[in-house]
């Protein structure tokens, strides 16, 4: 099958270790079904991550049923509310992403990183800038040069306003000296790609998995990507182009607040075993995701807090903070 190339970057088969409960107290965990709360769009990357985890997890949670609990609404607030309300209960987990930190940063939702117990980060999905194959732009430099020459004439489509995608691009733009590139917000990443494909916008700011097939077919080109990807080996990286930053989308797992350190360590081991399972690896390859595991829960917590701070500072500079 033509997707064999995908397996180039699949992580070598996992260790398959099954973590046993760390403390004798926790030997009884898990004693009922596990819920993974998902507040993302059904079928989207974050929702799929939740479902792939639920599919692979039972083997590492003593055979307990693991189900995805859909709680959409309020820009994620409904799901977060549910998770926060289950303080101290390790049977409820949530898929937490960059969008969550941006919504916290804007002040749209009344949540803080401290409302949850960070467990581990699983994926990092670098942003990239892509154009239609016949675009005059060959490099990011070309695009920004034209934007500086003719302010407002270069348009960039992408998912959402004051979203993780938007902020990722604003960070890149700031590093390029704030050339006037017009951000055109779309309802979804797919719609933003169609806009660029149809020539309605000059370029699109998105992630690899959305444009993968268009790159293979040659209908689109990537100007530069934030972090090197195995599948985009010959593509320039932001740093190499002179922009010293790497804005990424990322996804991880958090628990409700108030999990004891040993409970958290237990959950982390079980989840690590889950994401190393063959079934999960297959999903990662098929969804065109590369592992970027951050299995130090404290470091993950710091990462979340730092993301909120960076986003808040940038939003403040752009005048986009919601008045609280």
């Amino acid at each position, binding site marked *: 099958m033509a997707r064999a190339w995908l397996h180039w970057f699949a992580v070598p088969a996992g260790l398959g270790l099954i973590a046993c409960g760390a403390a004798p107290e926790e030997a009884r965990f898990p004693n009922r079904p596990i819920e993974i709360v998902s507040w993302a769009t059904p079928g989207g990357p974050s929702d799929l991550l939740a479902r792939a985890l639920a599919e692979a997890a039972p083997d590492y949670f003593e055979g307990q049923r693991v*189900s995805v*609990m859909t709680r959409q609404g309020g820009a994620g607030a409904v799901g977060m509310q549910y998770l926060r309300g289950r303080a101290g209960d390790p049977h409820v987990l949530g898929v937490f992403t960059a969008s969550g930190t941006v919504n916290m940063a804007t002040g749209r939702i009344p949540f803080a990183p401290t409302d949850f117990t960070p467990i581990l980060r699983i994926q990092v999905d670098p942003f990239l800038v892509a154009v239609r194959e016949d675009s005059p732009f060959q490099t990011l430099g070309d695009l920004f040069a034209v934007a500086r020459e003719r302010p407002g004439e270069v348009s960039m489509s992408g998912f959402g306003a004051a979203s993780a995608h938007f902020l990722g691009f604003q960070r890149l733009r700031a590093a390029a000296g704030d050339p006037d590139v017009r951000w055109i917000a779309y309802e979804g990443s797919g719609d933003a790609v169609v806009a660029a494909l149809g020539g309605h916008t000059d370029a699109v700011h998105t992630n690899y998995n959305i444009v993968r097939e268009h790159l293979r077919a040659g209908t689109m080109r990537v100007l530069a990507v934030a972090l090197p990807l195995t599948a985009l080996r010959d593509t320039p990286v932001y740093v190499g182009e002179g922009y010293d930053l790497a804005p990424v989308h990322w996804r991880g797992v958090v628990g409700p607040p108030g999990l004891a350190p040993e409970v958290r360590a237990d959950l982390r081991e079980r989840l690590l075993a889950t994401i190393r399972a063959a079934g999960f690896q297959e999903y990662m390859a098929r969804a065109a995701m590369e592992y970027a595991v951050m299995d130090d829960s404290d470091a993950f917590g710091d990462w979340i807090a730092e993301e909120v701070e960076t986003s808040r500072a940038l939003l403040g500079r752009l005048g986009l903070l919601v008045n609280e």
Partner: protein
Amino acid sequence: MSDGRRRSISLVEAGLLAVVGAGVLLDARGYPAPLIEGVPGPAFFPGLVAALLIACAGVLALRGTRAPQGAPESVRGVLRLLGATLWIAGFLLVLPLIGHLAALPPLVLGLMWLSGERSQWILMAVSLAFGGFVHLLFVVALGVPLP
């Protein structure tokens, strides 16, 4: 209903629509300015809709009553309406607390009673069967967690 009374109800109706329009206009004053000069921002469309709504309310108030004529509102009818609304609201309030198995049968039973069903046997059987049906279908067969 007298003509005068119908006219005043019509005015209340127009007034209500105008208040909604004014509320939208008021809220729109707090929206951020357009990001790009010369391009409508987030306040443009709400302003347009609110202005049209207020204009329509004005026409409605001026042209007088043309409401559908029907039988007059009966006191019992209004009581049933209020009862059903409160009953549904009560259901939504207690649903997360007591769960669907306990909350659904009383909801159905109450609404059937208000609709005029008086057979105790039917009231009990239908409401209990419905609760069980929803549970089996959603929770057991489809695996949807209900509160």
